[in-house]
């Protein structure tokens, strides 16, 4: 999945919760108010869109700190 598509899904989830859209990839997830439940929802929406379950390495997921890391993570797992 393209990075822009992942970003759009993330923004859609934030819109739905009435929160500010993502504007800066270097923001930490905390600064962007992107919470654990949002992360899980983005994963669900991506899985629904690509029609398969995402398989990932737990260590990679644990390295996530910024919005850029989230985009990198989903970009990678949707390609693998």
């Amino acid at each position, binding site marked *: 999945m393209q990075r822009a598509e992942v970003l759009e899904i993330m923004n859609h989830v934030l819109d739905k919760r009435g929160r500010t859209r993502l504007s800066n990839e270097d923001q930490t*997830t*905390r600064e962007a108010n*992107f*919470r*654990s*439940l949002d*992360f*899980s*929802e*983005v*994963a*669900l*929406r991506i*899985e629904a869109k690509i029609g398969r*379950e995402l398989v990932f390495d*737990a260590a990679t*997921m*644990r*390295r*996530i700190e910024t919005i850029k890391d989230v985009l990198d993570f989903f970009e990678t797992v949707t390609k693998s």
Partner: protein
Amino acid sequence: MLEVHLTFDVSKCIFCCRTWGLLLNPLIDKAAQIGKNVSFGHAVRIYGNVQIGDNCKIGDFCVIGHPSVHPSSAPLKLGAGANIRSHSILYEGSDIASYLETGHHVVIREGAKIGENLRIGNFSDIEGDCKIGDFVRMHGYVHVGRGASIGDFVWLFSLVTLMNDPLPPSHLSAPVAVGDMVTVCVNAQIMPGTSIGRGAFVASGAVASGVIPSSVVISGDQGEVRGPVKFLMHMESRTRHPWYKHFADSYPERVRQRIEAIGKEIEAESL
């Protein structure tokens, strides 16, 4: 001017103190079967239809084997090693395995079948005819409605309510079923007849209803499925769910293999 004369009768005072002292003694029915090394606090009441295992501690003002309002001849069986803190009331007709640990002011009604090492916090209550698995953890002010079924290693945090009347008040009953290793966070409300699949995570304040699949996260007052539980991660500490991978050390070592086996089973089911 009004004069008030106060008199102090020493003999009456001594009588009162003695009476109060007697009231504080445990009142134990001779028919009760009590194991070895069981200790009783002040003013405990033990009814006759009771079997208490070894090494139990019964705190002040507890009532053990309270008569049921329903016809029941089954005794209250309280397994070994229980620690019942003050002001708790356990009704007759329940079967409770070893190492029950209650907070203060806990009520367990008749007909409950409870597994090993239930820990239940202050002011929580379990209504009748419930089935509760092993190593379940309930924090304070949890209400478990009549007939609920709860699996092993379930967590119910404070103020969680498991309801059972679909049209209150009525004689209808639609108990809740909670699968193994489910986590229900603070103040979540589980509507009557809800079935929560194994390993699911109910976020704080959620209102859950219907059939909730295994290993999903739900949140909000509509009980919306937010995603798979495996993506649930505390973003700051990067601690991930399911909890058994980072929190099994809070259980006795002898059950950790069992926790891991159930956790892996649930993960396999969700694939």
